[in-house]
């Protein structure tokens, strides 16, 4: 079975006779497993895992525009930052937590809309460069607008949940939802439209796909999901400062997605686990840790262009062949 078939000829059938949602059940189970892991492990490992899950949310958001649509957005770190700063500031100004969340996500969505409109005509590396510098401008504002953001000192974040246990449930749940969202979108109109843009944007337009609107929708959705991750990291760390959202964070998120497997539902989880988890868990000195990370980026991108997910595909395909034999 190919995924292509799913948004192709079977699309119309699916509406009549929906398939059992095994994928969603699987992701839900995975989320449950991660929750158990989160509460069972000691606080250090738990914090690493929580960070991985929050990154999974941010990179899942990125997966929509970059994985499905093929647009190398390097500004996801800025949306992540706006989610964090937006919610923290809104709470500081007296908003209740839920309202602060919505406002932060809306703010990121609006910025996403503006950035999406501004770069609507650029493609490929120009899009990458444009979004990278947008991220740079956002991070410069976060560190230099002292009166708003308190500069490099950062600001403390009011805790919006009843207890840390609640947050420990919300984080894996949100991560699982973000994976489900990508799974959902990829089989819906927006998803296959993005996939036609990934393949050949001009041709997509010529078969009637409204490419500009599709990209914009995808980009705004990516931004909003990124902001949700930002809200959660602010809640989890209890403090935020601009270097958490430096311009290269957007870049590293793109790398995480590429390493995990762009366009694949589980790609963000694997990529985030790898990029965030490896340096912390191996407890390497920063020089050697980053050197190793660099080597692995390069090797993974060169040797397995589709990221870890495609490597897993290859292994599973080989396994199923040998079973049949």
């Amino acid at each position, binding site marked *: 079975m190919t995924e292509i078939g799913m948004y192709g000829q079977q699309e119309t059938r699916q509406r009549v006779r929906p398939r059992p949602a095994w994928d969603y059940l699987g992701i839900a189970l995975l989320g449950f497993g991660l929750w158990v892991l989160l509460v069972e492990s000691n606080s250090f490992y738990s914090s690493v895992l929580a960070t991985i899950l929050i990154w999974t949310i941010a990179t899942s958001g990125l997966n929509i525009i970059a994985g499905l649509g093929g647009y190398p957005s*390097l500004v996801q770190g800025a949306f992540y930052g706006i989610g964090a700063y937006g919610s923290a500031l809104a709470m500081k100004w007296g908003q209740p937590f839920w309202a602060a969340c919505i406002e932060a996500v809306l703010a990121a969505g609006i910025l996403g809309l503006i950035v999406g409109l501004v770069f609507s005509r650029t493609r*490929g*590396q120009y899009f990458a460069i444009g979004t990278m510098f947008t991220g740079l401008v956002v991070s*410069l504002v976060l560190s230099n607008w002292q009166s708003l953001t308190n500069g490099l000192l950062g600001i403390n974040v009011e805790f919006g949940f009843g207890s840390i246990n609640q947050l420990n449930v919300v984080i894996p749940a949100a991560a699982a939802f973000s994976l489900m969202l990508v799974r959902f979108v990829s089989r819906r109109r927006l998803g296959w439209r993005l996939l036609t843009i990934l393949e050949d944007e001009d041709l997509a337009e010529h078969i009637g796909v409204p490419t500009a609107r599709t990209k914009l929708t995808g980009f705004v959705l990516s931004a909003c999901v990124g902001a949700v991750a930002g809200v959660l990291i602010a809640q989890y760390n209890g403090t935020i400062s601009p270097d958490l959202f430096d311009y290269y964070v957007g870049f590293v998120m793109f790398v995480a997605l590429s390493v995990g497997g762009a366009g694949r539902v589980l790609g963000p989880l694997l990529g985030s686990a790898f990029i965030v988890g490896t340096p912390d868990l191996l407890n390497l000195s920063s*020089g050697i840790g*980053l050197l190793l990370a660099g080597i692995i980026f390069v090797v993974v991108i060169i040797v397995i262009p589709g990221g870890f997910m495609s490597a897993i595909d290859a292994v599973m395909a080989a396994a199923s062949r040998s079973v049949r034999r």
Partner: protein
Amino acid sequence: MLIQAAVNGVVLGSLFALLAVGLTLTYGVMEVPNFAQAGVITLSAYAMLWLNQTAACPFWIAALGGLVVGGVVSVLTERIAYRFVRTRPLAAPVVALGLLLILDNTALILFGGDHVSLSPPYAGDVIYVGSATVPAVGVALIGTTAVALLALWLFLQRTKTGRAIRAVSQNAEAAAILGIRLERQYIVSFFISGILAGLVAFAYGPMYAVYPYMADAILLNAFVVVVLGGLGNVAGAAVCGLLLGLLESFGAIYVSAAYQNLFGFAVLLLMIVLRPAGLFTNRSRRVA
């Protein structure tokens, strides 16, 4: 005041131009945004420092050794990594970032994270231009850039290899059909770009300090220059480098020093929106 700002701008602009031509050269032939250039500069600077201080070579010999190291490291990045992603433009930035991490952290592990100083014999001298003062290291930077750009221009215009590189830069497929050996041009371009990185290390190292991330921040400015000049356009990069240097220098004096870098970034973003192909090119093949 005005003259001093102009002089500062030319010094800064020379730095951007020198850095940007190296970036744009490799972009031209291979379409990789070579962020690893910053790492090449770092390693080259440390090589100069090591030769000068530990191996006790005279400064000029050390500088020459550092240039060679720059060239070799740059070629290595192409041989080990970039050549595998030539046909995958979206993988190139990721590989470039990975290489930058590798090079910077190699420096960190070998030499530590401290700021150290590369001291040429003229480090303390000052030159007076009318009412303005220019540090000798700034004059050296302007001189290095001028000589390097001239040499690069002559090389690209007058030599067979140079013309081949320009041909590849304009259209790699056509160049290959005409019998130009692409592999060779890639290696030569990366070697030259590494030498240019070495020159940045030589000229910029004495101004601030040598440390593993010494070139990361200015690389972003140089990238602005590369995009403004038109990706792959050497002359455009040189001119835009100077323009950006002057813009930032005057902007710092007359508008706001704190947002100095922002001027360049703002111009870049405007540029991408209004004229996506760059200032000095009519090529539009990379955009809608």
